[in-house]
């Protein structure tokens, strides 16, 4: 699998339900970040979790990080139609150089009324 690979690739739920997206990665990381992208638009930063953190909350978002399994999950609670978007995890790797982000393939979330 590739660095920052998400599953599922697509997720369709009803408004009010929770949505869970998973991300796996391969290398050691400084942090992992989740971004949201509406169709054809820019990337909006949602949340950053550092390598020494296990869980983080921001509003309706909950992110977990398991560095032993090299995986992360993003939970959106009480979803709304406006949450419809693609969600990407991105890893900030421990390397020399400029700390690039490596993005996953994304999960397309559709929240239906």
């Amino acid at each position: 699998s590739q660095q920052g690979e998400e599953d599922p690739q697509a997720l369709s739920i009803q408004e009010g339900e929770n949505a869970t997206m998973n991300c796996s990665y391969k290398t050691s990381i400084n942090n992992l970040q989740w971004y949201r992208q509406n169709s054809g638009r820019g990337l909006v930063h949602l949340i950053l979790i550092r390598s020494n953190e296990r869980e983080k909350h921001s509003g309706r978002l909950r992110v977990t990080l398991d560095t032993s399994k090299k995986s992360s999950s993003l939970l959106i609670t009480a979803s709304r139609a406006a949450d419809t978007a693609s969600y990407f995890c991105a890893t900030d790797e421990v390397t020399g150089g400029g700390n690039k982000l490596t993005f996953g393939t994304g999960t397309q979330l559709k929240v239906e009324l």
Partner: protein
Amino acid sequence: EPEVTQTPSHQVTQMGQEVILRCVPISNHLYFYWYRQILGQKVEFLVSFYNNEISEKSEIFDDQFSVERPDGSNFTLKIRSTKLEDSAMYFCASRRTVGKETQYFGPGTRLLVL
């Protein structure tokens, strides 16, 4: 709240032409990046820039690409001779410090090479 801005939002060019994509990073940020996203694909790193020099570049960032910070506020990506496969959304990003901070992305420039 400060944000990264990019111009133009859309650019259409002929194959072989030069294009310059412009970005204004957040003012107190020190690290700058370009990424691209081909339609339907994932976001890919192109180059990172710090202290007026490239700190890392990907294999995509060949001799046709260059970056510059000409005046202390703008950060540009130049493609010297565009190819059809350069058609993509190009994102600029900036961050304040290395290792622990979020990268903030601009809204992107959609480049179409005909």
